[in-house]
């Protein structure tokens, strides 16, 4: 790998590890110091490697420099020494503070950080932002692009979130056994949002969006690798992510736009990811609790089969029926009604759709338009026109306009 590619690559894979280990060592109160030392390490790499060439083992080089920087920081900063070395988790003498960058400690620290960041005391939006920064090593500008906002907003959001974690004295530790299910639930919500942010974001930066999804999958896999968190709902979530991610290539058009599901060439769906999805779904079916991730993974599984069979739509309908009982969302209600039209016929689906009354939602009118097509084309067109008025993005407007033009 060329040097100009290597540093960003290492930044992505190693920044988060160094930050997690140092933060675990210093405590959540000093998260910024951990981030600063990690950033500083990469700055040194950039300077040194440019003049002296690449070291033999760049990762080991980074770890050594990070350790030295952390150690000298601890020694130099009198205030820091007074305030923190007393509280250091490692109680060794000041001169010999052990900074453990072994694979085991990195993994443990990252897992513990994940639980700390996904603490219920901060908003889920802040959890997603902090996860991207601390657990995934994303730059502030990348996070801003992903959220379609500016760097200032993200900086403020992350700052407030860190303040909150400090104020609540959130520990960087594995939750105790009685708490783990509840805390894990909150971690999964964040990972699910992180993935969705990448999958459904309106940002045009496709590479960044896929990175978001892959990071969410990596973090979910981190949970699966740990015995205590290798739970059925975690496997169900990863299964769901694999099924969706299998369509990454097929949904990319040459001009950077997205190809919709029905227009995709299914030979470009990633078979390996589909079979991984099935593997994790099987693992998820051990145990007797059905989470929303199980149901969504089930729905996503059926979408890896494109053929319109009665069996498929009946299964999808029943999964949506169950999902809505666990957790209502307008999009699930609309998708359920579409599945109903495929399984039970349009007449029944129209009656059910009219009851939803999601009048502020463009997809509601797009659904009604779709259901009325061939039954009452005037009503179908009228509904698509209402959808057009509500559509916000250019891409959505184009898709709806195409439907209107068909009448």
């Amino acid at each position: 790998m060329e040097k100009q590619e290597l540093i960003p690559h290492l930044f992505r894979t190693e920044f988060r590890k160094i930050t997690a280990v140092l933060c675990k060592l210093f405590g959540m109160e000093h998260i910024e110091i951990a981030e600063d030392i990690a950033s500083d390490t990469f700055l040194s790499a950039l300077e040194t490697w440019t003049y002296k060439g690449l070291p033999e083992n760049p990762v080991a080089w980074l770890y050594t420099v990070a350790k030295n920087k952390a150690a000298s920081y601890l020694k130099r900063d009198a205030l820091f020494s007074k305030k923190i070395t007393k509280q250091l988790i490692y109680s060794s003498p000041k001169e010999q503070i052990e900074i453990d960058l072994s694979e085991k400690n990195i993994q443990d620290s990252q897992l513990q950080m994940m639980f700390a960041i996904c603490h219920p005391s901060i908003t889920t939006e802040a959890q997603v932002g902090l996860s991207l920064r601390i657990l995934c090593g994303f730059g502030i500008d990348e996070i801003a692009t992903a959220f379609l906002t500016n760097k200032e907003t993200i900086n403020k959001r992350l700052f407030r979130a860190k303040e909150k974690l400090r104020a609540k004295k959130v520990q960087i530790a594995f939750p105790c056994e009685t708490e783990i299910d509840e805390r894990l639930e909150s971690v999964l919500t964040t990972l699910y949002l992180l993935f969705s942010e990448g999958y459904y974001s309106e940002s045009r930066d496709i590479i960044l969006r896929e990175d978001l999804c892959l990071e969410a999958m990596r973090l979910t896999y981190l949970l699966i690798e740990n015995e205590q968190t290798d739970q059925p709902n975690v496997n169900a979530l990863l299964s769901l992510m694999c099924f969706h991610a299998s369509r990454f290539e097929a949904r990319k058009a040459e001009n950077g736009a997205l190809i919709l599901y029905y227009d995709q060439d299914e030979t470009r769906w990633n078979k390996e990811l589909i079979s991984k999805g099935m593997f994790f779904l099987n693992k998820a079916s051990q145990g007797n609790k059905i989470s929303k991730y199980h149901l969504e993974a089930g729905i996503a599984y059926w979408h890896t089969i494109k053929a319109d069979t009665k069996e498929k739509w009946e299964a999808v309908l029943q999964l949506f029926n169950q999902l809505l009982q666990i957790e209502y969302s307008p999009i699930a209600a609309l998708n359920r009604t579409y599945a109903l039209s495929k399984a039970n016929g349009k007449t029944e689906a129209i009656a059910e759709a009219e009851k939803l009354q999601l009048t502020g939602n463009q997809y509601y009118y797009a659904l009604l338009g779709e259901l009325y097509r061939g039954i009452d084309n005037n009503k179908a067109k009228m509904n698509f026109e209402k959808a057009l008025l509500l559509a916000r993005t250019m891409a959505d407007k184009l898709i709806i306009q195409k439907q209107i033009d068909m009448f």
Partner: protein
Amino acid sequence: MEEFILIFRHEDGQKLASPEQMQIWMKQTMDWIGGIAAQNKFSGGNGLPFDDARVVRHNNVVTNGPFGEIKETIGGYIIVKAGSVEEAVEFAKGCPVLQGEGNSVEVRKIAKGDHAK
């Protein structure tokens, strides 16, 4: 928004239906509940199987099952959110249990703390 319980009453719980018929009712019930949940009006519910059913009577006399001299049995219930009893009744009208002559759905408001009237 109030909560109402919809209780399914079967006239004769001993009547046996074929597995195919049971499957049709099951789908209809799931679709009916799914339709209520799609309107964000579903709060909870359960089927009440006859296995392990007991009736405890005066003087702690325990009998198996809710059958015998009781003509009606309760097959299940759901709890819905509704603005008025009329809205809850509209939900009840779609209940597949009502396809059986003599069956009924009882609609009752759930008393909640101070709101109980």
